[in-house]
């Protein structure tokens, strides 16, 4: 059997959820579960004007593909898409999309969760804050909680 290839994209423009789901499910009759995760830009209580997403071109796609392939193998997924945006993103706009398709729901939930936990800690993207008061804020700091979320998948 040929190993399933994930759909991976890093792009400036927005994505459409229905279109992305259809890319995985169209013409398929073996998929019983599709889980989607969309990460959006928050306004942080009105203080944030935009996030600026920087990435390492080439490595970002490669890391996302590596993580996606781990998830496909581990959870026997039938389809997986990961799309990450870069550039300036306003509150309310999409940042990231993960779609996992599987025979049954648990694998689809776990697959999407796994991809997001690893993507946050290993895919080379960085967020810079632009504040509502017009100033450029700081680079978002990495969170220990994100490392902990990833590490729960590494326990035997």
């Amino acid at each position, binding site marked *: 059997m040929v190993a399933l290839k994930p759909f991976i994209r890093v792009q400036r423009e927005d994505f459409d959820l229905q279109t992305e789901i259809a890319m995985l499910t169209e013409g398929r009759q073996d998929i019983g579960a599709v889980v989607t995760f969309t990460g959006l830009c928050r306004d942080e209580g009105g203080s944030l004007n935009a996030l600026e997403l920087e990435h390492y071109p080439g490595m970002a796609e*490669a890391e996302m593909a590596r993580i996606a392939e781990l998830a496909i193998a581990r959870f026997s997924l039938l389809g997986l898409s990961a799309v990450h945006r870069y550039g300036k993103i306003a509150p309310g706009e999409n940042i990231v999309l993960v779609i996992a398709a599987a025979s049954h729901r648990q694998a689809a939930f776990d697959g999407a969760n796994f991809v997001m936990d690893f993507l*946050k*800690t290993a895919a080379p993207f*960085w967020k810079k804050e632009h504040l509502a008061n017009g100033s450029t804020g700081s*680079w978002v*700091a*990495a969170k220990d909680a994100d490392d902990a979320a990833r590490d729960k998948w590494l326990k035997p």
Partner: protein
Amino acid sequence: MKVKLVYFAWVRERIDKPEEEIDIPETVVTGRDLLNHLKTLGEEYEAALQYPEVIRLAINQEHVDHDEPIAGAREIGIFPPMTGG
């Protein structure tokens, strides 16, 4: 050894350039050696790499630990912990 260095996020801002090609002395063997060497190149490098233990490294676009040998690397990425998603 000549190698291309690429910088991201606040490492890029503090060094004030996105990438450069530098000549690395033979005494620089590991990623950790490279960071310590770069710190001697000027104030901007000192500011970017003040806490080398938090810095992440990638050789030829793959994550590596600081003790990884850099011999043969074409491109070394130097950047802070990632905050995507």
